[in-house]
């Protein structure tokens, strides 16, 4: 049997080239999930189904699909069934923009939902505005989307970072203390969230002992935690999300820092708590929606419907975002009896969500001035285990969206409608 022997063709340069290719690994776009049919009204969803936000994006999709089924079962939109086309932004701005263009130009979608990543959401909002397509940002939180960069055609379902900060800072200050140290993910979402928290703390008369900016995708937080503990704050606020949040909390608990400093934050998600071992499910946070609420109409059916489609997994805030985004379109289009983006965008101003969609106690509506959904903050504490294996958060208070949102005048939003 002949044996083939390769020569040593690799030198330092090849390795370097390879290393460069490895960094591309994280931004390359691998695959597309698409659902095609022959139905006439097409809506497009762009979300990061691969990469660090894959789990939350997947849940948005589950919610969106459930909404599509429900809408079609009730006669669709203007008597036509709707079809959901799904594209993977791969957590990359360029890919997200390209996929959005493809959905609008080639697939002729009349509505866009997405993206989880604030940076991508902002970028694709440029595209939808240019193409005059109604767009609901399902899960990107950075303020400017419904703030200084707000657009006539763009609405948002999830909270702004300022709303998140406003929902918990007073509580953290009164309960945990006035010296705060931050761990902040170094991109749009983290920066605006930090600014909002810092501004509130300043108003309350507290001090900031430091802010550790961590690159998105940081796995080892030990160096930042060493610095944070040396600063000796009362509260350590964790602003990262997704796997960064999981890594950070896991290390904090292993280091025993939670026994010396209060650990808390603003936005927390069921996806993250479920990825953590029980001992690391700690701290005061806000959830943007929670599946366990006392006496909320239609909630039980929604949870049961989602469980049927997910092998028994409960809906998360993300499932509700996807669900609400798609239902918003059908509701407003059926009410206005048109698919015209500008008419629909105008009709959505101060549009209130009905009980079977809002699934929470307070009034929930899209604010006319900045197109932000006034949705509640579920403030409470993470718990190692509850009455159900997925009941990992104890909700103490459900604060209405218009109590946490700053007035429209403070958002910096000025809507420019097309002539």
């Amino acid at each position: 049997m002949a044996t083939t022997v390769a020569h040593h063709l690799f030198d330092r340069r090849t390795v370097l080239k390879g290393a460069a290719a490895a960094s591309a690994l994280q931004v390359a776009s691998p695959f597309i999930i698409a659902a095609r049919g022959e139905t006439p009204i097409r809506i497009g969803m762009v979300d990061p189904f691969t990469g660090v936000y894959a789990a939350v994006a997947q849940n948005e999709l589950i919610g969106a699909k459930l909404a599509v089924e429900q809408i079609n079962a009730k006669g669709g939109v203007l008597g036509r069934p709707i079809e959901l086309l799904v594209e993977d932004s791969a957590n990359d701005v360029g890919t997200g923009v390209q996929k959005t263009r493809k959905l609008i130009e080639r697939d002729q979608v009349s509505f866009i939902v997405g993206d989880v990543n604030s940076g991508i959401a902002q970028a694709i909002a440029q595209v939808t505005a240019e193409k005059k397509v109604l767009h609901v940002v399902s899960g990107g939180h950075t303020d400017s989307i419904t703030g200084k960069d707000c657009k006539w055609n763009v609405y948002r379902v999830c909270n702004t970072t300022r709303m998140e900060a406003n929902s918990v800072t007073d509580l953290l200050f009164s309960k945990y203390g006035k010296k705060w140290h931050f761990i902040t993910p170094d991109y749009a979402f983290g920066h605006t969230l930090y600014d909002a928290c810092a501004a509130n703390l300043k108003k309350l008369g507290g001090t900031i002992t430091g802010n550790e900016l961590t690159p998105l995708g940081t796995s080892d937080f030990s160096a930042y935690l060493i610095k944070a503990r040396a600063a000796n704050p009362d509260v350590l606020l964790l602003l990262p999300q997704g796997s960064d949040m999981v890594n950070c909390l896991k290390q904090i608990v292993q280091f025993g820092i939670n026994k010396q400093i209060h650990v808390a934050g603003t936005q927390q998600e069921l996806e993250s708590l479920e990825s953590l071992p029980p001992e690391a499910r700690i701290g005061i946070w806000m959830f943007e929606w929670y599946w366990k609420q006392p006496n909320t109409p239609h909630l039980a059916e929604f949870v049961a419907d989602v469980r049927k489609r997910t092998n028994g997994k409960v809906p998360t805030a993300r499932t509700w975002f996807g669900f609400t985004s798609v239902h918003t379109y059908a509701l407003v289009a059926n009410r206005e009896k048109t698919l015209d983006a500008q008419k629909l965008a105008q009709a959505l101003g101060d549009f209130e969500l009905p009980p079977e969609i809002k699934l929470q106690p307070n009034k929930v509506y899209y604010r006319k001035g900045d197109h932000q959904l006034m949705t509640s903050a579920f403030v409470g504490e993470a718990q190692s285990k509850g009455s159900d294996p997925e009941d990992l958060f104890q909700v103490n208070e459900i604060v209405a969206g218009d109590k946490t949102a700053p007035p429209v005048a403070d958002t910096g939003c000025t809507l420019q409608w097309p002539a």
Partner: protein
Amino acid sequence: MTQLLVFNITNGLIIGTFYVLMALGLSLILNLSNVINFAHGGFLVIGGYIAYTITPYVGFWGALLIAPPLTAVIGLAVERVLIRPLYGRDPLYSLLLTFGLAFIIEDGTRFIWGAQGKPVTIPAFLAQPLSYEFFFITGYRLFMVAVVLFIVALLFLLLRYTRLGIRIRAGTLDLETVSALGVNVRTLRSLNFAVGIYLAGLSGVLAAGQLGLEPTMGAGVLMPSFIAIIVGGVGSLTGTLLGGLLIGVASGLAAVFLPAASEAIMYVLMAVVLLIRPRGLLGEEGMMT
């Protein structure tokens, strides 16, 4: 400040040992088979998920023993079916193959285990800091360092004193001659690949105890491992060891003085080393020491 420095240097060394484990596996495969294994991070993920799956039955310690060899078996199959046919070709083929494989593994794990991260619990006595002062030195992290030291020692002994090790080293220098002397080069490469993947699997089990286990976790450690190899010098395992520790310390120190640069510092270090010593710190073409 001095305390912060000492803490971060120590902490950097701990992080560095982890990079070493990954980088050694990569280095072994690169040195003998000329394969830049982009799927190495993927094998780390496979190791972690296998450990997660079998932990309920065999416990953490059982998983630590069983998951890495199982990962190596998968690695062996991959080498046999996909990589072996490419040995005679331009190395770019295997580079592209493993690059694609990395995506397949990531999506494969997402398909099998779901996109959401999985909680891995480590034995309680390891999940505690040794002292209030040195809170960042937990039992688990010390255990990790001990495992890495043990494995590195074992690997070096294997390469120096066993027939397989001597053949691997000889093959690194001149595979054609080794083949001409009657050594089955195919088996040699397969075994060498399996050892490399075993190290990735072991890294995966160890990482799952400390980090969140999710399909993308391999990507984050792949780059530092490549940099460790380049800084240490391609071809030198001792260099890889040194490179891993060095970038660990460098990123630890950067976190103190210039936190935003804690990731970039690795690349800066690589650039500086390459400018001063283009072959890396201990690099000698084709030499494994």
